[in-house]
């Protein structure tokens, strides 16, 4: 069976070049970078090279990079670490309604523990308004945390502007750039950010590795205590093979970004247009054009439910994801789609295809051949479709 992976926003395969380097550090150059001997030194050197590679991709100095176990931990470290460091200065935090759970849940944890939280809404394209954010600022606001690009609908936020605002007001600004890294330029200076989260497994690097950019001079309280690695910001024996793989993945991402983006943008538009042509009652979620990540396709297909779509696609070897509640085990569908104003019944029937480096025109053709048949079959089963057809004809 043909297998077409279109879930790169969930995770990516590790680039073979990256995997090969990692192997060396698992089995041969396995020293602990804190060790004084040669095994330790060669690991330490490679670790610092990786730090440079990550720093370079985001325009930071290597001393500003703290490695973590992933994007989620980096988000937690940024938010909890800032809140703890500034709790005497203020208790107000601002975020948006379309953040990743790693940000939202962490902010809500703080809210339960004595902080005040304002959650900014988004427009129907999934973009937050700088004006709304400005109005939310209070004298005791200590942290603004807004994602660079949304993982579900690919909407790119006006980060640079928000950063300018935060800087003017002396508020720490954290940005989750997990989805934008490697897809569009991410530069900490241009974006005016103080803290920035990145993750390895979204850019053809390994799972279980991420990093937090911490602007020089900014203090955050560590989350994990111990041996004092990562300049005391993150204790624990460094995951050198993972970090080195992440570094390499960053280097490759920098080299390939322009080509990747062009390639994926083409496939993206082909897929979006193809779906709109072939299936009725379909709505594209998120912005079109430059405000959308080059690799994101998100559509709501009315009268069918997302998980059923996923399962049917999966049986044909196509891997996608959905904003359906049924894929998460809760009753509410995607908070992002609801935040954009979609009604529940439409949000339930949403599908995300996220493209990657390896995808081809043929992959898209295959999806465009199969998806309409699947939708037709499910709609034939659906009591909602009857009604819709009836009322349309009526």
């Amino acid at each position: 069976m043909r297998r077409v992976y279109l879930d790169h926003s969930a995770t990516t395969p590790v680039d073979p070049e990256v995997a090969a380097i990692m192997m060396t550090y698992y089995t041969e150059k396995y020293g602990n970078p804190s060790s004084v001997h040669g095994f330790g030194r060669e690991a330490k050197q490679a670790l610092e090279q990786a730090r440079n590679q990550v720093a370079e991709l985001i325009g930071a100095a290597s001393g500003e990079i703290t490695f973590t176990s992933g994007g989620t931990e980096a988000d937690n470290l940024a938010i909890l670490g800032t809140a703890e460091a500034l709790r005497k200065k203020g208790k107000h935090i601002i975020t948006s309604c379309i953040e990743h759970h790693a940000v939202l849940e962490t902010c809500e944890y703080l809210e339960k523990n004595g902080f005040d939280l304002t959650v900014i809404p988004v427009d129907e394209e999934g973009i937050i308004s700088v004006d709304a954010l400005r109005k939310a600022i209070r004298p005791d606001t200590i942290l603004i945390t807004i994602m660079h690009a949304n993982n579900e609908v690919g909407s790119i936020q006006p980060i640079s502007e928000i950063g300018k605002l935060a800087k003017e007001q002396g508020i720490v600004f954290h940005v989750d750039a997990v989805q934008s890294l490697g897809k569009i330029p991410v530069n900490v200076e241009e974006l005016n950010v103080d803290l920035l989260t990145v993750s390895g497994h979204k850019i053809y690097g390994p799972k279980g590795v991420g990093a937090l950019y911490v602007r020089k001079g900014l203090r955050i309280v560590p989350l994990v205590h111990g041996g004092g690695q990562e300049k005391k910001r993150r204790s624990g024996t460094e995951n050198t093979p993972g970090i080195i793989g992440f570094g390499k993945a960053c280097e490759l991402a920098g080299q390939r970004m322009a080509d990747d983006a062009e390639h994926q943008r083409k496939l993206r538009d082909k897929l979006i247009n193809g779906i709109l042509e072939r299936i009725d009652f379909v709505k594209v979620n998120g912005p079109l054009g430059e405000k959308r990540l080059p690799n994101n396709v998100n559509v709501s297909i009315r009268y069918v439910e997302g998980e059923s779509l996923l399962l049917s696609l999966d049986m044909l070897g196509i891997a996608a994801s959905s904003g359906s509640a049924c894929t998460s085990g809760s009753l509410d569908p995607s908070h992002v789609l609801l935040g954009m104003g979609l009604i529940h019944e439409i949000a339930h029937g949403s599908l995300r295809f996220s493209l990657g480096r390896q995808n081809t025109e043929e992959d898209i053709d295959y999806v465009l051949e199969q998806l309409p048949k699947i939708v037709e079959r499910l709609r034939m089963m659906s009591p909602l479709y009857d009604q819709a057809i009836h009322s349309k004809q009526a």
Partner: protein
Amino acid sequence: MYTEKVMDHFTNPRNVGELENPDGVGEVGNAKCGDIMRIYLDIEGDIIKDVKFKTFGCGAAVATSSMVTEMVKGKTIEEAMEISNAAVAEALGGLPPAKMHCSNLAADALHEAIKNYHDKQHKKE
């Protein structure tokens, strides 16, 4: 995630469709929570002669709908009333824990259809 039996019923659902002049129709769920199941019954005497369903919902919702129609065909109304959601799940070899409460409503739809049949009978009398 799903058992083979669930996937079989999802891929080849039994008794999909509607009945022209059903003796009973039952519907549970709503689009908001992501699952709607509608069941149509033809009843002769006490016996369920034919049954069809239409479902909007996830894999578990489709599979339980399909399974319940198989379980009930040819049964008496009394027997049908004794089929529980848990029994349907069991007949499918089990459902993931998260699906047990949210998408496992096919027996409820069946019972609604039987109730609807009784109501209609009542009116005729």
